[in-house]
């Protein structure tokens, strides 16, 4: 059976034009997707069954037993942490947030360690933005700043930016000017019209210099900023002002270099200021396919996008205090539920050490480093392959993930829903 218009559950581009061939409940071919997306959809080894750690070893058990154990751990803890949500549906996120509220837990997603600076900057200065189709149809100046999407978002340039044609961009690549700002020449830079090399940690200064020149205060800018000559900076500002529709995409190179949220706020402010001269938009290159979906659900249901602490019975949001790594580094939480993410592989050592000390429940289709630390392992169906549900593309466009084959395991949503019922049962509600 051939299924068309399939969504790819890999990166924040959320491509929806994938063609999948299914035979006997198995995906045998994937067309149109990038290599990473294809390998994700073809599948690899899964966690076979629910497991509980006994005498230091994970032992197979039933869902019923593992879910009861998980509910007991969470009910008996004073400060549970619920983290992850990078690669699952909004429906699972909703259930997770309801569970967090019931438990008085801290709930946080991978935004906490990737685009948190982007959300803090948005709160500070706003975000003039647009959907990706707007760029495809109009943009004649495309800027990637600290974002090597040739590797992280492989089809980004061919679907939405450099190598596509749209209503007002009928010439395609020829009519567009593509610039890359980065500290080293990336694969993205190789296909750009211009690569601007910035000294490590100097993004903030370069952005400030561009803003100063734009504001007519170029005289305060020294002859070189962050490794970029002043003449070049002036030329860049002219190019920006003279574009018909410009866009600035930024990635972890900006959010995680010195200055973090201040870099992002400065980049957004530059784009904002450019709107007094021409049309300009800014878009954060969100990583996982539905990391933004969690921010959306968390925002409409709690008022805040991530790092929400329910210990007071009401949402308390204070990133830096209520964000996962900070909570772990203070050794504050006494249990953790990790959903669709692998903090053991990505967190600082101190945080992982605390995760290893406390009871840890993992919900995931795949074994990871986090599994090594888990006391309860609940295998899940794969969202977008075995389960339908909602995901938000990096530009906020919500799409419905398809179910392509029958699942072997329960969905994240179902597992969380059962844990919630069990918690209520234990508490006698």
């Amino acid at each position, binding site marked *: 059976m051939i299924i*068309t*218009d399939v*969504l790819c559950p890999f990166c924040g581009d959320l491509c*929806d*034009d994938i063609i999948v061939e299914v035979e006997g409940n198995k995906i045998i071919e994937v067309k149109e997707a990038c290599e990473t997306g294809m390998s994700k959809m073809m599948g690899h080894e899964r966690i076979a069954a629910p497991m509980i750690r006994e005498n230091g070893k994970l032992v197979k058990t039933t869902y019923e037993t593992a879910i009861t154990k998980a509910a007991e751990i969470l009910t008996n803890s004073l400060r549970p942490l619920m983290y992850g949500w990078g690669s699952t549906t*909004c429906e699972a996120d*909703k259930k997770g947030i*309801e569970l967090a*509220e019931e438990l008085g837990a801290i709930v946080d997603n991978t935004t906490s360690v990737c685009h948190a600076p982007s*959300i803090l900057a*948005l*709160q*500070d*200065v*706003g*975000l*003039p*933005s*647009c*959907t*990706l*189709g*707007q760029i*495809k*149809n*109009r943009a004649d100046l495309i800027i990637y700043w600290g974002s090597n999407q040739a590797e992280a978002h492989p089809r980004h340039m061919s*679907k939405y930016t450099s190598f596509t044609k*749209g*209503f*007002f961009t009928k010439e395609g690549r020829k009519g567009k000017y593509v610039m890359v700002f980065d500290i080293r020449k990336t694969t993205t830079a190789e296909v750009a019209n211009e690569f601007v090399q910035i000294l490590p940690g100097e993004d903030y200064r370069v952005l400030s210099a561009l803003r100063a020149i734009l504001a007519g205060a170029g005289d305060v800018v020294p002859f070189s900023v962050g490794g970029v000559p002043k003449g070049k900076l002036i030329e860049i500002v002219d190019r920006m002002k003279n574009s*018909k*529709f410009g866009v600035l995409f930024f990635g972890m190179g900006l959010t995680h270099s010195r200055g973090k949220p201040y870099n992002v706020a400065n980049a957004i402010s530059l784009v*904002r200021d450019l*709107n007094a001269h*021409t*049309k300009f*938009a800014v878009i954060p290159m969100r990583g996982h396919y539905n990391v933004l979906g969690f*921010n*959306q659900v968390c*925002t*409409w*249901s*709690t*008022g*805040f*996008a991530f790092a929400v602490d*329910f210990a*007071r*019975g*009401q*949402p308390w*949001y204070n990133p830096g205090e209520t964000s996962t790594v900070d909570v772990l580094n203070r050794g504050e939480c006494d249990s953790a539920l990790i959903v669709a993410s692998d903090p053991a592989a990505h967190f600082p050592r101190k945080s992982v050490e605390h995760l290893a000390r406390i009871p840890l429940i993992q919900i995931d289709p795949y074994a990871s480093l986090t599994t090594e630390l888990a006391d309860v392992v609940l295998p899940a169906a794969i969202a977008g392959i075995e389960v*339908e549900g*909602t995901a*938000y593309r990096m530009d*906020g*466009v*919500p*799409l*419905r993930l398809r179910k392509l084959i029958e699942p072997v395991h329960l969905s994240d949503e179902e597992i969380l829903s059962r844990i919630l019922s069990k918690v209520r049962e234990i508490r006698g509600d």
Partner: protein
Amino acid sequence: MELLITNGIVYDPINQISGEKVDIFIKDGKIVSGVKNPKTIDAGGRIVMPGGVDMHTHIAGGKMNVGRMLRPEDGRRGIESKKKLTRACTGYSVPNTFATGYRYAKMGYTTTFEPAMPPLLARHTHEEFRDIPLVDKGAIPLLDNHWLILEYVKSGDMDKLAAYIAWMMNATKGYGIKIVNAGGGEAWGWGKNVRNLDEMVPNFDVTPAEIIHGLAEANERLNLPHSIHIHCNNLGHPGNCDTTLATFDLVKDVTSNNRQVMHATHAQFHSYGGSTWADMYSKADAIASYVNSHDHVTVDPGQVMFGDTTTMTADGPMEHELHMMSKRKWTNKDVELETGSGIIPVFYSRKVSINTIQWAIGLELVLLIKSPWKTAITTDHPNGAPFTRYPEIISLLMSKKRREEALKGVHSAINKRAILSSIDRELNWADIAIMTRASPAKILGLDKHGKGHLGIGADADISIYDISPEEDDPRKIQSALSNAKYTIKGGEIVVKDGEIVAVPEGRTYWVNPEFDGDVTKAMLEDLAVKFKDYYSVSLANYPVQDAYVPHPIEIKTRCKNAS
């Protein structure tokens, strides 16, 4: 379950009941003529009305959620703990979804319409609807800057235009046609705007006047329950009253089935005289006099109340202008081929002349429009103020004394550039029942679907307020309207003594117009090209799936003969 409400002083304007003691019988969620074993509510001489209907309130979707994300400081303002039945609440002007449902129900409201759904993001609006408990909902898709619509209006292809709108209602699970700064949204794709009704939209060779007229005709041809719902061009500009009146005049020749052909929303923002902010003054009298002498237009005020709130609209260029003036944090979101939006926080100050005049204009409009059936009470939540300010607004409309007190503390510009102080009218409870229930239901076309009245067969959505009709202390009126004694939704008691006692999910109204198959086929070929070449999503993934509308109320319409 059966209910009997006895001893209430009932205001049910659609059924010509005005402050009479009438028993109300409820069975299976509807009003019936009698019941056998009811639970009885003794209303004890208190006021009983149909559940409140808010016809224009930005409660859900991409824009509201970015507003929440933008303003954690607002989120922190309305924090309430989780309780046994209710989820935790946050926010004042940008409340979370749960707070939205609870706060409406506590004020006795049971129906709320989101008036600005970007079609490409419709799924988001419906997702949030699912998390807004208690109230019934509907969402009006933004259609006026849509490429295919601009093209059909330009070529005069009224058949395909209607076919496309019919398709869009299905695809977005939408209710009607929303117009926002017609043509300005497309121009804003290049950082530009359109300034008058006859200015060409760049690259599309069509004018706002043509777009508005074309959509009004298509609306009536499809027999949609609601008329076109318009946010006029030039919002918030001194002197924009002329544009507003010219917009009303545009659709004079369009005929409808027994209702208005244009609903002009948040008219307060469109009733300005003058040529700069320094000489801007109230033209509420001109707008009201037009509405008084014509039957094809209805308006809601979009009342401004003093304090902090958040403005959010699909009028992208207008929000950018606000940003250029106030320099406050600003978001913009253009949506490919379709529409856009912007958000900016605002503080309306009683010490600022413009804000004071804006505050006066909303009240003036409502008081100067003679027939309460031609208007409805709104704040364009959260643009003029959060919806939670309605009780205060109603107390101002009902009491000249309260207005006089309020006038004392505001900027002196009110004396020369507004007319509020010269208006003596005080609304009565019947007027209020019309403007907050019967009229918005009628304007939306929901009266024929069981909303806004208490006749046999109507939805048993009822509010009982702890106040008798004789009470004229405006503060007591405000307090009673803020915390309903009872709110009954679909025959179930959901609020008692101002507390939530049940949390049923609401339903979603959408319109499904039937249209000629051959024209639709030809239109779909045009649409397929748009998706193949210009959209960033595929056509197959565009329509909102049924899973997002778990409690739909589908209103079918049959179109009038082809032109």
